């Protein structure tokens, strides 16, 4: 099944053989074979649920395989817990960042490494100098003494990588590392990865974006439904063939946005300033209007006021200064699905109800009309293709894509006026992401209301520049709390990307 490359003279640095893993009734990995060699950047691709993250979990000791053999540099190893993986020279950068938020960068980097003296000492100076050296080598720089929770997501990612490199692993595994980076940062990051590989390491990457895969990977392994469907050098592939391999069918090219005919004004922010959770000025003098029938895109790296802007637009928080005019009901798709959009232990009906407790249709005085909510949830699941056997399953049991479909559908039920979406497709596979984008566009174009009202307005706040470019009628960049309008004639990846990253995410200001 595998198509061994030219490097096969030495044993593969990572060799997986017939790995199987089942979670309850779900088979996540169904006999996966994989070989990766030192000196190569190896991309692992596939849709959500294809088993990529589980496979990487197996390799990093987070998930224990039911069956199969793992060999590192030719020797079989048992990876029952992360310690074993570290000991075998495998370093993992997870998709869900695994830093301790309340510790400093330095402490996070040093965590879990025993230097000497039975751990009775914490050699801060030593850690600091090695960290400096690593920063210089890779170009990933970060203040070692700052507490991690004060860092932006992008910066945390850097710390995560530094932390892994600090242990000098021979195999580096990264799960969707680019999702929080701006385009220019992605370029830089890829060159770091290539540099690491050229030192003789193996870099295993999970990626979603096809152009990124083709840009960085030496070899590509495609997973589908827990099986390897293809493995080969990337030079022989193009985006079309790769997409077909991943999804199993051709993907229609998306249509470009057709010009909108904006309707009545829905939102007006004037001179809005707001403080962030740490008391810093997160938004400064923001002016923004949104009309019916248009999609306004706000690009920018997380940590530049995105959260505050979203919450103010959603009506969940009030600004410190300035005036805000909002419609009565606002739908909101937050960035953190299981933290802010859904209650993981609630079932789907309850999660739908969470957004509708004010809606007169679903209340009778102080009582909730659970019957109506249940049938509404069933309809919603049908309409938006939420893949779940019954509305009685808990939200955490759904895949990320299905969770997001539920959230989008629910927020459309909540408001026919305005929808605010933050990173609406993050962590979704191509098909699910496509679905969500289509929904957003469809609703902003059609007369969505049942009584034939005007279409709602949509604001997409995202760090995914491609998403913003693809969806938006008007584009802004939010950087260091300031909202910058992008002129119609400069809607290019390069221009907007440059606007996003000029000193991106520097929280010191």
């Amino acid at each position, binding site marked *: 099944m595998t198509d061994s490359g030219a490097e096969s003279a030495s044993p593969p640095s990572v060799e997986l053989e017939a790995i199987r893993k089942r979670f309850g009734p779900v088979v996540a990995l169904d006999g996966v074979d994989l070989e990766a060699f030192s000196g190569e950047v190896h991309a692992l691709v596939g849709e959500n649920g294809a088993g990529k993250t589980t496979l990487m979990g197996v390799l*990093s000791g*987070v998930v224990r395989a039911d069956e199969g053999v793992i060999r590192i540099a030719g020797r079989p190893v048992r990876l029952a*817990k*992360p*310690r074993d993986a*570290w000991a075998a020279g495998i370093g*993992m950068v*997870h998709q869900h960042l*695994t*830093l*301790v*938020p*309340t*510790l400093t960068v330095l*402490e*996070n980097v*040093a*965590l*879990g*490494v*025993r*230097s000497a003296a039975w*751990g*009775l*000492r*914490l050699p801060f100076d030593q850690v600091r100098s090695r960290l400096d050296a690593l920063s210089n080598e890779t170009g990933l720089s970060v203040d070692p003494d700052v507490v991690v929770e004060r860092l932006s997501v992008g910066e945390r990612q850097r710390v995560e990588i530094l*932390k892994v490199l600090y242990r000098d692993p021979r195999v580096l595994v990264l799960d969707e590392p680019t999702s929080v980076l701006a385009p220019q940062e992605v370029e830089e990051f890829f060159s770091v990865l290539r540099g690491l590989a050229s030192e003789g390491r193996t870099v295993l990457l999970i990626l979603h974006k096809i152009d990124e895969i083709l840009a960085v990977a030496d070899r590509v392994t495609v997973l589908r439904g827990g099986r390897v469907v293809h493995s080969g050098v990337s030079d022989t592939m193009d985006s079309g063939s790769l997409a077909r391999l991943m999804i199993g069918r051709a993907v229609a090219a998306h249509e470009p946005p057709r010009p909108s005919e904006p309707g009545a004004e829905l939102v007006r922010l004037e001179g809005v300033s707001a403080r962030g959770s740490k008391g810093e000025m997160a938004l400064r003098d923001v002016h923004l209007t949104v009309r019916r029938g248009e999609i306004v895109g706000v690009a920018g790296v997380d940590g530049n006021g995105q959260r505050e802007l979203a919450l103010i637009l959603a009506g969940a928080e009030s600004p410190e200064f300035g005036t805000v005019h909002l419609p009565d009901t606002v739908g909101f798709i937050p960035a953190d699905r299981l933290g802010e959009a859904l209650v993981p232990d609630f079932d789907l009906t309850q999660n739908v109800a969470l957004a509708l407790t004010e809606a007169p249709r679903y209340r009778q005085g102080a009582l909730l009309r659970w019957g109506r909510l249940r049938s509404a949830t069933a309809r919603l699941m049908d309409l938006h293709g939420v893949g779940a056997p019954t509305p009685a399953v808990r939200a*955490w049991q759904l895949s990320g894509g299905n969770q997001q479909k539920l959230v989008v559908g629910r927020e459309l039920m909540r408001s026919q006026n305005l929808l605010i979406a933050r990173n609406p497709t993050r962590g979704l596979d191509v098909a699910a992401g496509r679905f969500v984008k289509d929904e957003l566009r469809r609703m902003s174009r059609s007369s969505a209301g049942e009584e034939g009202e005007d279409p709602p307005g949509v604001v997409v706040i995202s760090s995914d520049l491609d998403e913003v470019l693809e969806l938006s009628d008007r584009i802004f960049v939010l950087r260091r709390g300031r909202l910058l309008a992008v002129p119609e004639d400069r809607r290019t990846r390069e221009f907007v990307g440059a606007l996003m990253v000029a000193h991106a995410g520097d929280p010191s200001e």
Partner: protein
Amino acid sequence: MAELALLTSFLAASVRLGVPLALAALGETVSERAGVINIGLEGSLIAGALGGALGALAWSSAFGGILTGAAVGALVAVVFAAFVVGLNTDQIITGTAITMGGLGVTGAVYQARFGLTGTTLTLPPLSSVPVPLLHRIPVLGPALFDQAPTAYFAVVMGILLWYGLFRTEWGLELRAVGESPDAAQAAGVRVRWTRFWATVFGGLMAGIAGAHLALDSGTFIEGMSGGRGFIALAVVVLGRWNPLWVVVAAIFFGGASALQFSMQALGWDVPHQFFLALPYLLTLAALAGWVGRARAPSALAHPWPKTSI
């Protein structure tokens, strides 16, 4: 001069009353830093008191009593840890059971050993040891440097634990386990192992605190811990989970308790219940005033790994 003597005796009493709280709270600080809140501290404390009494009798030495008390307190914590770390049961409810059980079993064992109607134990004393030279300092000397060995032990432990928590790799791992066990595990830290031993250490310190109670008063009686396990929990918060502040907070609470005795001894005509409630009121005020938003370890009382059903 008389005022100074009064001050000295007040300070000395503050330290004396603070010592058992400091010992128990220091242990609890360690286990809470690892994410385990032990409401069963009272159980370890009373078990340590009985263990201390029995040990002191068996070895005819106060030191033997302290060691036995430590062992018994640790043993109780092993039971607690087996449940909350091993079986992943709810920490609050398990702790409640451990407190109930500790009070009950010590009573039963005491009665089995010394008869249903009890007896008048006289234990080898935990005599105070003056620190050479220092105890001659006016006012402070006799108050601070003429104390039982356990008092010095508490202070030394405060410093050692501060160093251990914030200046060693062990401490870093332990704090990470209490803040974010998932992240700690991903970094290769043995989360359960760490939590288990931190909890047992907490019990050991509570056992020493209990043994101190028994030896300091020279006897054991049922229920003599008198809720100090719960107070120790408050002291941990008051000390912001920092061993050095915990020692200070324990002495603060000890001072508030000493105040009730000093004031009654002065013959103030205020209902004595007011003085009895005073330490708690002062602690509430201190929490409201300066502890404010001090943050508990993020994963405190969270079972790990999270069970999915």
